[in-house]
């Protein structure tokens, strides 16, 4: 289970950043005035260090 979680913590942000944005269209809903594609990418850029921190913690155990 630990291994699966580690792979997920790496794969999910990669998919969220490299593939998903191609399918986010339109100009609503906005967050802090940002269009959807921009806040989605920004969100995952901030989340990716958090995911790596999780991987790092599990590696140490």
């Amino acid at each position, binding site marked *: 289970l630990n291994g699966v979680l580690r792979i997920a913590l790496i794969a999910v942000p990669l998919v969220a950043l*490299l593939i998903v*944005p191609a399918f986010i269209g339109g*100009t609503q809903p906005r967050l802090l*005035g940002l269009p959807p*594609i*921009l806040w989605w990418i*920004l969100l995952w*850029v901030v989340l990716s260090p958090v995911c790596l921190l999780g991987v790092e913690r599990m590696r140490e155990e």
Partner: protein
Amino acid sequence: MTLPLPMLIVTIVVIGTIAFALIAVRRLGNDPAQFIVGGRSFGVILLWVLMGGELYTTFTFLGIAGWVYGRGAEIYYVLAVGGAAYIVAYLYLPRLWRFAKERELLTFADFFAARYGSKAFGAVTALMSTFTESLALLVYLTGLQILLGIAGMGEIDATHAVLIAFGLITLFVFTAGLRGMAWASIVKDALMIGAVAVVGFVLPIAFFGSPAAMLAHAIAARPHAFTIGAWTAGNGKLWYISTAMLNAIAFFAGVNAVAATYAAKSEETVRRNAMLLPLYSLMIVPLFFAGYTASLVLPGLHGTQSDSAYLRVLQAHFPLWLLGLICAAGTLAGLLPSATRLLASASQLMKNVMDDIFGVAKEGAAQTWVTRVFIVLVASIALSLWVFLKASLVDLLLFVYNGQAQSMPGILLGLFWKRVTLVPIASGLLAGEAAALGLTMHPLPLAGLNAGFVALMLNTAVVVFLTFALRARLPKAQMPDWGLRKA
């Protein structure tokens, strides 16, 4: 002759930064490992500013805002890569560092020579990567010309300004080596953060009240520019996905990025650095804002003029000292990555060509001095080339990125797949570079895929196919052990 105020500020900042770094480094000595990879002693902060400083260049400073100004949402790949590339880096850079540390590697080409057991292959990769890095230098020089042209207010010959600035930075890296670059990057980063905050927040606030209000205007004016186009269209969905993947994989493919990795003091530092670097890429967001603001305030610019659109807005509506500080930040962002590229290229001409092939400069101070000679040589060649062929840099840039990316199978497969050997890797590299060059000169539609990505896939396919095909003839007992420990 009196300098216009912005140019005066750029001059003071560049000279001040160099002076600060020289004082911080003090006596460097002539040990090649100190000069080329900082004695493998950099902690998280020095490594963070060095890597961040190398990876965010005049393209970030001008090109991103220019793209936003004139085109659509596909440029958001730059920000996405700023998150994803470091996840990829987290997976392989610690292993690369360990491989290099155990063998005391100094250069990018050292990795290929050591991993594939061939000094000749090391020399070939050294020459090829030095060639693409020199082309990259041409692109930075053109970026500098745009910046210094604006800072000179049309009163100074920008070509001369570029020659002087580049001459200074060449002398600086000649003296201070990689450690000097890292210290100078601290100043550069502080200035960049300030500059980016000004152009990304002060500009929209001045004209529209807030960045959100500015974005509302931009969205109303060009709603289609916030969605990525159809599947196989030029710059469509497939283009976004393939470009983002290519850049995430090849983000650290440059010779200077590999040298920066070697400079870390431990594997732990490399890992922690990869976790912190995404924060550096948040600086890209204000540059999007600057581009949108410029497209609303000063519409109608084309080509390279759109790259400097927001600087022109600053020039017309804000105090000149502010323009000076921002141009200074951009100038450092162009000069420092150029200098680390010069150093990394020169060090592999010394190590992998002169030492490994001709037996010149075997050790110690001689290696450092030969590297210094090559720094001056490569800088002079790049400058002369640039003065004579400034035109059509867009194609050049495409080839540089696509060509650099072709070394990644050699690094990634080399680190994670014991069975891969010289012949498959060299054949893949050749196929990849040929495809990258061919597709740059004769673009094909490729269903909207990025040409560099297609070349990288071809490269990888050749490596995998030949590895399996040749293994049938190579008894397992003869497989060399590369000493790659499990992570």
